[in-house]
Every structure is written in structure tokens, then in C-alpha cells.
């Protein structure tokens, strides 16, 4: 049997010891003496969240298909174990082999959300590695970043040796082949990084210098090494059907946030909502072949024994073969006694019919994401959902027996007025009114409408990347306006209101569009004891603000400025296909309240057509 890195005494003292022992179904064990490359994939958050992430499962499967590579996993130790590891100087270890990460060839860290950045430093620190790439000698693993936040890697630049920009299925094998050759030849880390920098999609931050204007904005961003490229091209898999997909995903012992089979049906989104980063980053929209999806679903259910399956995509209703796929799944899953968890579908006759087949109407709720309270503001953000459509969908659902509706909105969107905020309350009221139009003897008691608002954070590579944010107090005022307007409605007793925390929003905004200067603040905040910022019980806004002040950096430089159109952004060296020109045009159209048609209706020439595939070719 494997020897565990942690003693019985520690494992019996901490919460969820199952998070640290590995041995899960479908986890991969190899003989370390028979592989050339040891890769540790990290998700910088707690195990139960990290285990729900599809991207790691894809790469884990892809790497372990290579005979020369053993890919293992690590997640953030929870604060109880974190304290013990620091006290007893226990180095962070990978789950499979239980070996020290510091002895691996690669440590790959996925960057899924900004609020995990202090946990990135926690992982490096607990692994007993210097935080900064320049301080890590030949004996340390190469530290790599990837995932959506690596589209603006600059706040993390000094801590990483390289970033992989784009989808992992394309050049990772080339990179590993190169590494193996360099390792065999006994070449240095720098020599390898110079070679890696020539591979498309690989960004080596140390090979670039940034200069700033006196006002803090970027004056220039240039390669300082002849091997480094001017522009880093995002990586995309054009044939998304015939690529890697794990038919044997790892099944955790403890209940993960998403304890089920996840079937990815397409990548990208045709909609073009102006606030949505994923909608721009993952263009063009590419569908997977429905026959392959059916086979994959079956294989995954068989290999995992999961009791639930869900579909993954940015907008499942837009998948052209959705009815065929769902019919198949309903048939297959009822035989296997597997539940189908539906993604948020557009509410129409089709989705209501499907929902009534797979869910208990009395217990389930309908979800709408109008995102903004007025038609004017929905035009600004290019969210093509009208009040008429919402009311029609809700009406049909109420007639069909549903009584619960969830509504998602954002506050703090560009051009937002008080009328737009109040519109949230009015829309909720209109839905409630529609419910009470049903004769009393035909409806099932009261309806319950849950309104949730988050605060909008402008992200890189979106038409709103130029937009200003607000102060914490202003966000709370906005939430108060919604709250009071809801209270003034006739059916206010049927409407419940929740809103997201404002201080986390401000921080997320700083990190999302931050530059290299933010890295020092990040490290200082971590040194002050911040970890698990994504968890409200651990988030320490005060530590962050203290660190900004000590570094002499004004956080409002990142949040409260509307950027001029010609400002150099920290992420400008990356090309995502979608052009800056297109984004700028969308930003202007937003201010004029002009909508842009979706990719199926008409091509708007965003630039993703250069990949010559997906929706751009198939139409």
C-alpha cells in the first residue's frame, strides 16, 4: 500500500481527510521510475471545488495517455491543514504518489477566478518553493499557468515561469516533447524557456519588459529576448469532436460540488453579450458531434458509476442537436436510474417539456438571466432577452405547475441609471402579477421569485474592458435602491432579494485588469496572511487595502478610471482572434444602445473567422 504524506494523527485531526489521500476511482498510478516527466496539476482552491473542474480532468487524461508522463493532482489545503503543514514544515505533496511537488518537473496551476490568486502563492509556499520565478533555481519545477485568468496573466507574472494561453489540447504535447529532449540533453531551464517561448500560445513573462508613463499607464511592453514573440496567439482546437475527452474521469470519495458526469457539448457562444469574457475568449462557437456525445455519455456513466449527468456549454439552448441529445439521455438515463441535471436552458415550450420529464415540478425552479432591469440597459449589454419573452416563458411555466422563479441581474453596468435599477423590481413584480392572474383554485399557493444581483466586473477582451467600476459604498447604494423598490411592490411578499458582497467585487476588478505592479501587492497581502479570498469567511479586504497603501499604489487607478480608447492594456500582447477594433466598436455601440446580431443571424466580423472553423464556416 502507498505511504501517505500525512500521518494518521494529522489526518484524524483535520476536516475532510479524504481530500488528501488520493486513491480515487479512475485516478492514475504509474511507476515513477518508468516515466520521464512528472507533472502536477493544481487547482488553487479546496478539493471539493477543484474536483468539479472539467479542464483538469481533460488535461489529466490527456497527459496520462502519454507513457512518458505521469500527471498527478493537488488542491489547496484547507486552513486547518495549512496551519499544521507550516508548523511542522511538511512540504505540499501530490495526491497520487504522495511525493513532494518540489521534486516534480512541472507544476501547472489553473487560474479559474481572480479570487484564488493568494491560494496560488499558498501552493508555491507550502510546496517550499520561492514564490518568484527568478528565485527558483534549476532544482525546482517549472511553474505554469493556464485557464481563463491567464488571458491577463500580468498580476501573476513574476510568480510563473510561463503561461499557456488558450485551449490545452493543441500544443501541450509539443511542449512536453521539447521538455523531454531538453531534460535528456541536460540543458538549462532558461534554454528550455527560450525554446518554449517559440511555441505558439506560450508566454514567458520574464522575456518581456514593461515601461510605464508617469500616470501609471503602460508606455511600452516589449520582448527582451530574441526567442520571445511580439504577440501570443490563443490556442484553439478546431475539431472539437475528435480531440481529447476523458471517458474515465476521477471520481472523488467525498461529495464534490458537482458530483456527476459532465458532458461538454460545445465551446464558445454565438450570443456576444458585451459583459461576458467567455463569450469573446472562446470564439468561434464549435459544436461536438451528437453521435460522439452519446457514446461519450455512456462510457462516462459506465466508468464512474455517477448517479447524475449534466451538460456543459455557455449556452446549451443554442446547440443545434439539443432535442436529439436530450431524448437520447432521457431514454438512457431512465434505464440506468441516472438523474439528468439540466443546464440553464432558454425557457420555451421545448425546455419546459424536457424539464417536466426530468424534474419534480414542485421542487424545481425556473431560471432567467435578464442581467439588466430595463430594455434600454439590456440593449447596452447586448443581452437579447426581452421582457415579453420572459413573461411568456414564466407564464407558460406557471400554467404548467411551476411556482418558483430565479432571476439573475448585474448592478453597476456601464450607463446604468436609477431607472434601470428599479426596473429589476418592476420585472420581478410583473412576473409575480402574471402568476396571480391564474385563478386561485387553479394555482398552487403563492409563487416565489428570487432576485439575485451581482456587481459587474469589467474583464479583459470584452467590449467593456474600457469601463469604470464603482466604490464599495456606491455598490451597496445600488443594492439598496433595488431592495427598497422591491419593498414598494404590490407583491413584495412573493419576492426575495439577495445581493453579492461589494468588497470582493472591488478586489476582483483590480486583479482582473491589473498589471505587473499588482503582483507586489498580491505577495504582500499573502504575507500578511490572506488565503481563500473566494470564501467570505476568510476574505480580508482590510489586508488588501493595507498592502496597497504600503506599496503606494492607488487601487482606484484600476477600478475608477474609464480607460481612453488608445490606452495600452496589460493584456494587449495576447491575440484572441476577436480584434481590439471589434471590441472598440461594440463599446461604442453599447453607449448608443445599439444591439449586435448573434453569430447565427449574421457575421459581425469580430475576427474569430481567421480560425476558419465552427460557426464562422458552418454558419
Amino acid at each position, binding site marked *: *500500500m*502507498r505511504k*501517505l504524506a500525512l500521518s*494518521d*494523527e494529522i*489526518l*484524524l485531526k483535520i476536516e475532510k*481527510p*479524504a481530500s488528501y*489521500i*488520493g*486513491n*480515487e*476511482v479512475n485516478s492514475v498510478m504509474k511507476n515513477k521510475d518508468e516515466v520521464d516527466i512528472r507533472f502536477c496539476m493544481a487547482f488553487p482552491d479546496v478539493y471539493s471545488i477543484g474536483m468539479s473542474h472539467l479542464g483538469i480532468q481533460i488535461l489529466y487524461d490527456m497527459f496520462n495517455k502519454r507513457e512518458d508522463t505521469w500527471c498527478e493532482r493537488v488542491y489547496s489545503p484547507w486552513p486547518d491543514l495549512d496551519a499544521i503543514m507550516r508548523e511542522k514544515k511538511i512540504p505540499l505533496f501530490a495526491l497520487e504518489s504522495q511525493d513532494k511537488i518540489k521534486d516534480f518537473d512541472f507544476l501547472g496551476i489553473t487560474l479559474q477566478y481572480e479570487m484564488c490568486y493568494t491560494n496560488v502563492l499558498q501552493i508555491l509556499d507550502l510546496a517550499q518553493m520561492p514564490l518568484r520565478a527568478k528565485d527558483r533555481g534549476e532544482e525546482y519545477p517549472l511553474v505554469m499557468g493556464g485557464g481563463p485568468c491567464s488571458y491577463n496573466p500580468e498580476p501573476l507574472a513574476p510568480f510563473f515561469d510561463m503561461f499557456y494561453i488558450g485551449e490545452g489540447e493543441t500544443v501541450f504535447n509539443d511542449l512536453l516533447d521539447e521538455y523531454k529532449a531538453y531534460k535528456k540533453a541536460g540543458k538549462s531551464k532558461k534554454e528550455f524557456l527560450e525554446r518554449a517561448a517559440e511555441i505558439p500560445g506560450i508566454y514567458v513573462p520574464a522575456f518581456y519588459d514593461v515601461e510605464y508613463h508617469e500616470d501609471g499607464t503602460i508606455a511600452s511592453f516589449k520582448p527582451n529576448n530574441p526567442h520571445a514573440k511580439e504577440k501570443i496567439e490563443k490556442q484553439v482546437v478546431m475539431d472539437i469532436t475528435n480531440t481529447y475527452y476523458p471517458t474515465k474521469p476521477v*471520481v472523488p*470519495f*467525498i*461529495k464534490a460540488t458537482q458530483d456527476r458526469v459532465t458532458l461538454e457539448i460545445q465551446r464558445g457562444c454565438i450570443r456576444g453579450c458585451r459583459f461576458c469574457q467567455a463569450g469573446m475568449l472562446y470564439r468561434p462557437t464549435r459544436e461536438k458531434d451528437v453521435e460522439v456525445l452519446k457514446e461519450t455519455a455512456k462510457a462516462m*456513466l*459506465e*466508468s*464512474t*458509476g*455517477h*448517479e447524475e449527468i449534466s451538460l456543459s456549454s455557455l449556452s446549451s439552448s443554442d446547440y443545434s442537436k439539443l432535442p436529439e441529445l436530450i431524448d437520447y439521455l432521457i431514454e438512457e438515463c431512465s434505464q*440506468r*436510474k441516472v*438523474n439528468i441535471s439540466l443546464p440553464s436552458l432558454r425557457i420555451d415550450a421545448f425546455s419546459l417539456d424536457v424539464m417536466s420529464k*426530468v*424534474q*419534480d415540478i414542485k*421542487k424545481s425552479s425556473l431560471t432567467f438571466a435578464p442581467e439588466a432591469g430595463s430594455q434600454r440597459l439590456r440593449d447596452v449589454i447586448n443581452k437579447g432577452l426581452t421582457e415579453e419573452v420572459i413573461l411568456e416563458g414564466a407564464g407558460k411555466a406557471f400554467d404548467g405547475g411551476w411556482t418558483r422563479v430565479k432571476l439573475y441581474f448585474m448592478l453597476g453596468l456601464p450607463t446604468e441609471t436609477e431607472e434601470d435599477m428599479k426596473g429589476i423590481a418592476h420585472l420581478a413584480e410583473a412576473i409575480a402579477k402574471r402568476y396571480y392572474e391564474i385563478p386561485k383554485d387553479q394555482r398552487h399557493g403563492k409563487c416565489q421569485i428570487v432576485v439575485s444581483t451581482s456587481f459587474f466586473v469589467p474583464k479583459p477582451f470584452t467590449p467593456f474592458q474600457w469601463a469604470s467600476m464603482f466604490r464599495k459604498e456606491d455598490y451597496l447604494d445600488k443594492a439598496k435602491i433595488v431592495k427598497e423598490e422591491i419593498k414598494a411592490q404590490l407583491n413584495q411578499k412573493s419576492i426575495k432579494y439577495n445581493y453579492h458582497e461589494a468588497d470582493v467585487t472591488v478586489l476582483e476588478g483590480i486583479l482582473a485588469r491589473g498589471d505587473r505592479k499588482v503582483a507586489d501587492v498580491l505577495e504582500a497581502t499573502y504575507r500578511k496572511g490572506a488565503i481563500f479570498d473566494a470564501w467570505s469567511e476568510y476574505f480580508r479586504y482590510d489586508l488588501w487595502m493595507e498592502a496597497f497603501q504600503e506599496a503606494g499604489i492607488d487601487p482606484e487607478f484600476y477600478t475608477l478610471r474609464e480607460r481612453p480608447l488608445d490606452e495600452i492594456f496589460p493584456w494587449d500582447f495576447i491575440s484572441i482572434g476577436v480584434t481590439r477594433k471589434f471590441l472598440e466598436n461594440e463599446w461604442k455601440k453599447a453607449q448608443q444602445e445599439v444591439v449586435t446580431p448573434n453569430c447565427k443571424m449574421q457575421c459581425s466580423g469580430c475576427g474569430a473567422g481567421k480560425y476558419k472553423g465552427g460557426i464562422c464556416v458552418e454558419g
Partner: protein
Amino acid sequence: MKVRVKFAKEGAMKFIGHLDIMRYFQKAIKRAGIDVAYSEGFSPHMIMSFAAPLGVGVTSTAEYFDMEINTPISSREAVKRLNEVMVEGMEVKSFRKIPDGKANTAMALVAAADYYVEFREGMEPEAGWKDKINAFIERSEILIVKKTKKNEKEVDIRPYIYDMHLEGDRIFLKLAAGSVKNTKPELVMEAFFAFCEQEFDSFRFTIHRAEVYADKGTEECRNLISLEDLGEEIE
């Protein structure tokens, strides 16, 4: 057909709690392709019932659960298929047919269990503890203080200790288990430490469950039969 599965849970698997072991088997049974009965409704659940939950940190070679299967399968085939989908540390020992009826469920039958207590290296009590076992068990009364939410009360656990003796360096315990009469190996050890006038720390020893029994005897005379032996092999 009702069947009873006996399994072992050892090594690192001792850190997986009871509820997660139930989930583990629900998935394992699906992977093994065994046709089991489910509850009705929108979220059907496998109908399983476990004999006696095992605490985190305790290993066992005699865990039991019962379930109902729709399609008959031979014991040999079922054990083979289940073991093909087990992880390291988990092993299915037997798969047997049991009689129908609520009184025959593993949970209702549990009356006693065997345990081995072993001291961790360097954490043994002071020399001479082995000689004290007989004196400890020969007493007619072994009182321990049981803490409840409201108060503390003294309980005599002696009637629940059916056997206690030394096997090499390990202590063997046969204890009452189940819903009516029961005691735990930790409590017996706590009392034993007190008897030896030594400081108690549950981390000084490991516990292994070796068997679980039903009592097929009378009020006066126990007749313990392992839960496994109450089932019969399916050909």
C-alpha cells in the same frame, strides 16, 4: 432477491467516512453492472442498508450492507465484478442471499462485534499492562462516566464485554453492538487505561473490526452467528 455484501475497508480507506462509503458503493454497484432495486420518484435511490457504521480511522474486514437485486447473479460472479471496480483498500468478501423481512436486515440483526486493538509503535502503556487484562475483566462491574447533553451518568459496561484477552501484542474484544445493548472499543480502552492508572489518549492505539454477529440464541444463552453465515451462496 435480497443479498448481503461483506467487505473489507483497510489502508487509506479508513479515512473515508460512513456516508461517503455508502456513496462509494452506490457508484461501484453501477460500475459493476449489478441490477439492483431503486426507490421510485424523480431521483431514484439504490435501496441499501448498512449493518453498523464504522468510525473514521477504524479499519475492518467485516463490513456489511444489504440490498435487493432484480436480476439473479451468482455469488462468485458478483464478487468478481465488484472487486474489478474496487479501489486499493476495499475488497468485497462475499455476496450472499438472505431471507426477506425486516427482522432479517443486517441493521436489525447486529448484536455483537469483534475488535482488535493494537498499540501504535512507541505508544504502548507502561510495561506490565498485559498482565492487568485478566484482573480488569474479572471484575463484576466496570463503571465509566457517560456524558450526555444534560448530565453525566455512571454506566456499567461489564455486561457488554463478552470477551477480552491478549493475542500476541493485540487485545481481542468481543463487545455487544446494535441498538439495544452496546459499547465501543474506545470506551473499554478508556476504562482499561483508568484501571492501569495511565493517561488515556485514543491516538495511542488503532482499532480493527474483525466480525459482526447476530444473536440467534435465547435471553439466557447467546448464540452468535456472523452476519455472513446467515446468508447462503448463490450458485
